[in-house]
């Protein structure tokens, strides 16, 4: 698999004209495993939306290499899934085949094998016919990881994937993240558990609207940097003046 890299050129992302991510410049190397860490409102989710392309940068440019939707798989924070929809776990997971099957493509025997393998990998064998409305939070997250597996993307974005998930499920799903890393996929995860970041994520981006530190996890998560991130105000100033820093 050809690994995917992301290059940020003085990127500013936000809502209205107010920046949520301010002048981010740098690169996520191909095949890296990066944690995005920072206080609430620091722009972590906004950054992922910018990478997926659902949010257009106010300024600057995000270059994904190689480009294309098929390379990116995105698990949003507390996915906006309509749990009351009459759909089976199997069909939910099968959606991961979209980039291959698309609107009209058939789902053949090999695809069915892959769906079964994905369900097995997340420990949901026997749940195929269950309606998604009957799943617990952890089981739902397992199903969504199975869908990510099927997407077979070279760039995987996870927004707080382990929030409100028990220890055993977290450990199982974290194994999948490690497996993706071993397969040379680029993985970016927004996380709050700093111990987990130190244990499992070699690279970290510490952000508090402005990037605070970026690089080797041990170096980034220093007490000084964490304090600096906490100090950065969350203020939304309705009368803020236009930013004078020029974009690259």
């Amino acid at each position: 698999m050809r690994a995917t890299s992301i290059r940020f050129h003085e990127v500013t992302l936000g809502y209205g004209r107010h920046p949520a991510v301010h002048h981010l410049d740098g690169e996520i190397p191909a095949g890296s495993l990066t944690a995005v860490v920072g206080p609430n409102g620091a722009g972590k989710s906004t950054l992922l939306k910018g990478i997926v392309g659902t949010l257009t940068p106010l300024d600057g440019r995000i270059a994904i290499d190689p480009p294309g939707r098929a390379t990116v798989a995105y698990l949003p924070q507390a996915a906006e899934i309509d749990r009351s929809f009459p759909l089976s776990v199997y069909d939910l997971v099968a959606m991961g085949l979209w980039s291959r099957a698309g609107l009209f493509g058939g789902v053949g025997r090999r695809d069915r094998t892959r769906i079964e393998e994905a369900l097995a990998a997340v420990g949901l064998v026997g749940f195929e016919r269950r309606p998604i409305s009957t799943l617990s939070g952890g089981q739902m997250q397992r199903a969504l990881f199975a869908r990510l597996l099927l997407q077979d993307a070279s760039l995987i974005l996870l927004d707080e994937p382990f929030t409100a998930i028990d220890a055993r499920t977290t450990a199982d799903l974290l194994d999948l993240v490690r497996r993706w890393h071993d397969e040379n996929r680029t993985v970016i995860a927004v996380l709050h558990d700093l111990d987990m970041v130190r244990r499992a994520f070699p690279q970290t981006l510490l952000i508090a609207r402005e990037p605070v530190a970026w690089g080797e996890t041990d170096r980034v998560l220093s007490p000084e940097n964490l304090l600096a991130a906490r100090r950065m105000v969350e203020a939304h100033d309705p009368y803020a003046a236009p930013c004078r820093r020029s974009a690259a």
Partner: protein
Amino acid sequence: MADLLLSPFSDFAFMQRALVGVIAIALAGGPVGVFLMLRRMSLTGDAMAHAILPGAAIGYLIAGLSLPAMTIGGLVAGVVVAVAAGLVSRFTALKEDASLAAFYLLSLALGVTIVSLRGSNVDLLHVLFGTVLALDDSTLLLISAISTITVLALALFYRPLVLECVDPTFLRSVSRAGTPTHLVFLGLVVLNLVGGFHALGTLLAVGMMMLPAAASRFWTNDITMMMVTSVAIGIVSGIGGLLLSFHAELPAGPAIILTAGGIYGLSLLVGREGGLLWLAWPGRHLEA
């Protein structure tokens, strides 16, 4: 018994035509209604049904009770209101339900006014409640064509339609099909309302979509089965309503919708998936 159920259809051509009409309407209305319900757009369907009225009325004003004029008028009005309500809710603080309500109230008032400008109360009743017992060949062809188009289009757009309901964020991340799919779906809703309107009138056309769909929700937890059930309920309501109207000398359109309503009530009571009786007497809890 067979006499009671079969002879009206074997003896009278107008009953045969009505039968073909309601089956065609049920075939497309069932799945469209299921999607309206699952997309939480049930009231949108209702509002659009009202929105069709002034268009059909203008067609009527120009050409009398003419099929093409009223069809085109209804289509144009339905699309205009759908788009206008969408724009108002996107660009102003008003939510879609409120802007739809505003548009459909206006449409209803405008439509009734336009019809009464020229016609009699009989014509008004015709437009509001349809003439399922007087469907001519061209109307039957129109209704069948609309059903065919609808079923084909739903088959083609099935995946994004489902995905857009279940997980819109995911659909947006893998494909740009979301917005076109929504527009195609709105178009199908308008088409089916216009088809249904010739048989059942603007006010009741939406009944053949929503009542079978709502009833089917009480019988299954699977979307495919829900569409099948909904079509079956639509067909049974159509046949039952026609027989009821024939034997009890009731107006046919309302009799069909009342039958569908009866099936809905029954499903609400005894349906296996969340029917009231099962909620009241669930039986002893299980071991696991």
